[in-house]
């Protein structure tokens, strides 16, 4: 393996602002694929609060991709538990975003790899991901990374 210069690590307080920009971009992009993902008018402000809450939060897994002291991507996941199932824990990627100019460099793969290594330590054997069904960019990415369709969610207005 050659050194890409990209470091995958846990975020720190110093990352809050750039991380909030990535969180905002993730949601702003996904709203384009489904109106149910439409973001609020003060989404940037809320993204900052969310980024703050992602630091040292033991209920979620968050890693950032640091390239030359600039954040170029992040991943956030939660553990879904169901004691009825033999595989009673599945790690769900709730958010994964890589800046457009840093795509096709393997960052998404590195983020997932790092997360997989971490959750393996807790005995978790499966990792899944959620995103709007029309987000073909995500579909293509996860297929390439060896994911298969696993669960389906339908939605309707009430």
């Amino acid at each position, binding site marked *: 393996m050659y050194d890409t210069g990209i470091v995958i690590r846990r975020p720190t307080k110093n990352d809050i602002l750039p991380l909030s920009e990535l969180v905002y971009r993730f949601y702003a*992009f996904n709203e384009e694929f489904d109106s149910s993902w439409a973001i609020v008018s003060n989404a940037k402000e809320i993204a900052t609060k969310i980024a703050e809450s992602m630091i040292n939060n033991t209920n979620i897994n968050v890693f950032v991709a640091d390239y030359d002291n600039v954040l170029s991507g992040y991943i956030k996941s939660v553990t879904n538990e169901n004691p009825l199932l033999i595989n009673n824990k599945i790690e769900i990627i709730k958010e994964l975003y890589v800046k457009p100019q840093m795509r096709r460099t393997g960052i998404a793969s590195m983020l997932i790899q790092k997360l997989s290594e971490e959750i393996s330590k807790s005995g978790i054997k499966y990792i899944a991901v959620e995103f709007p069904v029309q987000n073909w*960019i995500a579909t293509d990415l996860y297929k390439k990374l060896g994911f298969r369709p696993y669960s389906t969610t339908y939605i309707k207005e009430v």
Partner: protein
Amino acid sequence: MSIERINIREINENDLNQVVELIVRLKSVNEELDANFKVVNNIYDVVTNYVKESINNDKVVLLVAEDEIDKTIAGIIRFIIIDRLFYEPRIKAEITDFYVKPIYRRKKLGVTLLQKAIEYAKLKGAGIITAIYPAGNDIADNFYDKQGFIPLNKEKYKTCI
């Protein structure tokens, strides 16, 4: 959000800020779809000038879809009249910017905006209407396919290194 309360009309100076926001969003989506569309740092300034020039250019039509209740601009469509010079029909309307806020989607607002744009294009003498957008935009592909558009031109690129 219902589109029954939406009025489609030509842009005026009072719409500037909202229209700029929508066009910036559109350009930012393009950036997500292809890194070759990385937006410039002063995108808001650039789009503001672009919209102002559009208002004052008789070759350009910029329509807005306004929510009559809260005066929100729910979507925009902009086209430019181009003389094809060598080909008939000579006059084409080229859609350069088309965006509907996500919360207003799935209500046929895009179709209504397009139909209105076609009406305006006819009044400007256009015999055909085309749309230009990044090759990786599958949402736009699906939309225009459904509306009966077919491929016309191709644009290829390589970096000058």
